[in-house]
């Protein structure tokens, strides 16, 4: 997609404040180029805040490097050419068709008052075809189902031709079929286009299945980082979430996290 080699991401002592509260403290993290990092942790752990800072939406202290470039010093246009974001709940512009929505992804590649030339439109058509959105191309995004909208949003991010794709709980509003479909799509695109993916995820099983590495956060701190089987353990889940789970390793599906019933009479 980008024609450029995958970009690595380095977070060195990153802290992020929201108002007077520091919600992420001194985080160190390394994403190798072309890898998928699943960010997991309970509500309020700081996952979305971290995604927001990586996208340049929130100020931070410490070093946040993408492709060895400091995110804080990049212009907003350069940042958008390097990092694309699939938000948790995208805003739906009224009266905007899927084709126009995907074209918005070209914004950082157009001159300030430019309208987008033939090459931009061709790229949009190719993206629409790649994501099998042809039959929806002239539909309004506000009329799409959750799964269709997710694909349209991924299409917009792809049209940005960025090297890093940030996903903020991308499957939280989807049923299990569409969750699987959306994540498989992102994974295919990652391999096809050499993307580095960082996804904040709630479902630990999916996070383990798709992530090359997993970062477990709680209360704004990194509790563990490593391969899925290193990080997603019964002890770590208990420590971060306070949840009682069984972690199974299955040859066919890989790692699966199953909540343990506490039974009637549990107090």
């Amino acid at each position, binding site marked *: 997609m980008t024609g450029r080699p995958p970009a690595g991401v380095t977070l060195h002592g990153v802290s992020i404040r929201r*108002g007077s509260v520091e919600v992420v403290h001194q985080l160190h993290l390394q994403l190798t180029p072309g890898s998928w990092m699943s960010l997991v942790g309970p509500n309020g752990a700081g996952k979305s805040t971290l995604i927001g800072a990586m996208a340049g939406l929130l100020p931070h202290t410490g070093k946040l490097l993408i492709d060895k470039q400091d995110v804080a010093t990049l212009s907003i246009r350069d*940042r958008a050419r390097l990092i694309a*974001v699939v938000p948790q709940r995208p805003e739906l512009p009224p*009266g905007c068709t899927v084709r*126009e929505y995907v074209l918005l992804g070209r914004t950082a590649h157009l001159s300030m008052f430019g309208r987008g030339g033939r090459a931009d439109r061709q790229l949009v058509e190719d993206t629409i075809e790649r994501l099998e959105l042809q039959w929806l191309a002239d539909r309004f995004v506000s009329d799409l189902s959750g799964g269709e909208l997710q694909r349209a949003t991924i299409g917009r991010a792809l049209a940005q031709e960025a090297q890093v794709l940030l996903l903020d709980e991308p499957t939280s509003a989807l049923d299990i079929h569409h969750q699987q479909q959306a994540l498989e799509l992102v994974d295919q695109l990652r391999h096809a286009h050499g993307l580095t993916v960082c996804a904040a995820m709630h479902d630990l099983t999916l996070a383990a299945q798709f992530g090359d590495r997993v970062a477990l956060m709680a209360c704004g701190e990194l509790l563990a980082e490593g391969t899925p089987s290193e990080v997603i353990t019964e002890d770590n889940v208990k420590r971060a979430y306070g949840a009682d789970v069984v972690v199974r390793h299955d040859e066919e599906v890989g790692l699966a996290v199953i909540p343990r019933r506490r039974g009637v009479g549990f107090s």
Partner: protein
Amino acid sequence: MRTHRSLVSLSIGFLTLAVAMTLSAIVGVSGLSAGDAIREVFSHFPGGPASRLAELDASLLWRIRFPRVVLSALVGSALGLCGCAYQGAFRNPLVDPYLLGSAAGAGLGATLAIVYLKDRSWVINPLPVLAFAGALTAVAMSYLVGRAANRQGRRDSSVLVLSGVAVASFFTALQTFVQQRGSDNLRQVYSWILGGLVTSGWTEVVLIAPYLVVSALVIFSSARLLDVLSVGDDEARTLGVRPERIRFVVVLAASLGTAAAVAVSGLIGFVGLVVPHVVRMLFGTRHHVSLPASALFGGAFLVIADLGARTLSAPAELPLGVITAFIGAPFFAGLLIRGVRS
């Protein structure tokens, strides 16, 4: 599809404006027939028919009626365009071009001119000049207050809207104070506030045209960026634009256009709010269509409204602001009910 929709909407808009201007130019209360007015216009073309009008009647057409038609088209286009731009910049369909206090500022400027300057002789009429200056001062103050508030930590366009409310209230209070001190001029002040183009001529057209051209050029060039803003400020930033910068440029240009319009026409409500709504209902929300269409239909609407203002209770003139609300409100309500039902 996209080009087709643009072409259809713009063609309909041009046609509507042309018909409205022609109608308004040939209909009036001066006793001149429509045929005579048309012959007079064509008599100036090579090979055209001879005019049947006396010199005084021809002069009335060229020096009073035609500039008034042109001015009403310009003012209506400016209010429609600036309303659409404001609504896009703030992502709020309830916003009108007077949002940041331009109406209240213009009102104060006009009242000052009426109360303190009308008895002296001036090279140019000080009323539109002071109204224009008042409108721009109010918008600048709203922006400065909004920026100061945003520096305190809130990066939110609603802060700017609220500062507009504060500044507008302050300017309205000042205007009322000045108006009460010069109560001999109450009627004149009220007549200006209710809006109208009674004293319009080519001088007013020339006075506001450059500002309207600059305003329109900047707004039209920003159409795509306004589309980007429609996904919200955070998403717009991740797509590579600075929403606050786009908003500043668009609001500045729209305020310039509004100030110019309000300076010569007084306060004409409704056009800037309703015309963009109607246009979006008919032709969609994308700004490369809705901006020019709002300008064309805004112009056509005000031309027709002004025709009504000068003919409905002739020889007296109705305030233009009354007519715009009188025609526009039921029309808009009908469209709204139809839109909601469908």
